[in-house]
């Protein structure tokens, strides 16, 4: 690896950002537990949340190791303030109805699946290759599952089609942020650690177009992409998530299971 000194802090930031995406989406999806429209889907959503939380744990643990400043994976996950979280806005969007949640899952999985595929095959970082090798295959399940649902809803009843179209209108303008590399991400891409996220756009777009075509959905034009999460600028909902997520650690500092 070249430029080790620079990459060290950039690597930490980039891994942390990935971990934040997975933690926040994992938490969001976990909110469905016990509330899904049917039992199989309750298990499916809980399993997807578990995958995401598992991936976030591996990423936070690695970030803590890179930082080497005495912070643990729990410290990173639970003891930062809102502006320090760099997750994209898409993952913090409220669950809404089932169509919103499953479409959000499709958008994210269609991005992370090729992302991890690239890392597993090409990254110069052995730990990330290991995390990616597993995550890629897990995200393939999320992708297939959510894609099948989006088709089922879009090509289903008038009501289901209306709901999923509303979800597309509400969420599509958050997807552009997936392809905005932070300076840390860009530095990692230049060093062959992570892919240049912009190069993943064609793959993402063709996956979504394929699913939308099957589901009788139109690909919307986005006039005003919503961004800011990568710089710590979040929507109001983020504070509510952190309130719930951090409650135990804030109330009982250093609590251990």
């Amino acid at each position, binding site marked *: 690896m070249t430029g080790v000194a620079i990459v060290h802090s950039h690597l930490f930031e980039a891994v942390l950002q990935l971990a934040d995406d997975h933690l926040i989406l994992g938490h969001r999806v976990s909110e469905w537990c016990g509330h899904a429209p049917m039992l*199989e*889907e309750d*298990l*499916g959503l*809980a*399993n*997807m*949340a*578990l*995958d*995401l*939380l*598992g*991936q976030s*744990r*591996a990423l936070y643990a690695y970030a803590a190791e890179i930082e080497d400043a005495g912070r643990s994976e729990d410290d990173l996950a639970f003891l930062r303030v809102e502006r320090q979280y760099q997750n994209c806005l898409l993952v913090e969007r409220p669950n809404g109805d089932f169509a919103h949640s499953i479409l959000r899952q499709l958008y994210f999985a269609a991005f992370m*699946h090729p992302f991890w595929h690239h890392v*597993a095959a090409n990254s110069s970082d*052995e*730990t990330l*290759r*290991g*995390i*990616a*090798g*597993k*995550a*890629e*295959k*897990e995200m*393939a*399940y999320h*992708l*297939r*599952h959510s*894609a*099948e649902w989006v*088709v089922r809803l879009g090509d289903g009843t008038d009501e289901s089609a209306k709901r999923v179209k509303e979800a597309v209108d509400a969420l599509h303008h958050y997807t552009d942020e997936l392809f905005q590399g932070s300076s840390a991400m860009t530095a990692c891409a230049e060093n062959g650690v992570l892919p240049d996220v912009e190069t993943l756009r064609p793959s993402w777009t063709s*996956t979504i177009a*394929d*699913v939308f075509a*099957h589901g009788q959905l139109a690909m919307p034009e986005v006039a005003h992409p919503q961004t800011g999460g990568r710089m710590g600028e979040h929507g109001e909902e983020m504070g509510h998530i952190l309130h719930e997520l951090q409650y135990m650690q804030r109330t009982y500092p250093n609590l251990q299971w």
Partner: protein
Amino acid sequence: MTQPAANHSLAAERAWDAASAVPDPEIPCVTVAELGILRKVVVENGVAVAYVTPTYSGCPAVLAIELAIEAALLDAGFEARIERVMSPAWTTDWITPEGCEKLRAYGIAPPVKGSNSKMALFGETVVNCPRCGSSDTQKISEFGSTACKAHYTCRRCAEPFDYFKCI
């Protein structure tokens, strides 16, 4: 089964025998060695070091597995340490043929080797019923009772069954 990478010391062999017999906590019909989770055991200065690769990222059994292996090594008279190996990532292809057969006998369809689950939008994998062997099966849900299983039902014998997800 024997340790994959030949390890010459008798102590290492004894440590491997102890660790490899540990059953998986969620699917006790197979051992951690048969699942391919236990990669190797070496003995250094009297300390048995077991190298363990976790299965699914979110598998809650990882810690239980590590503790069970540590306990088995302690019981066998070793000081023990667990090393978690993240790379290369565990894959269902590492489940041994005996492990697959035990899964089937237990009522869980073993993973289809080299299946299409890596990608395949809208693709289907053919999974044989572990009870009657029929390939006329139907996926009920991509996600089953644990992180590692999907839920199927057999159209011929009408039994529901778990399928060990292929990763």
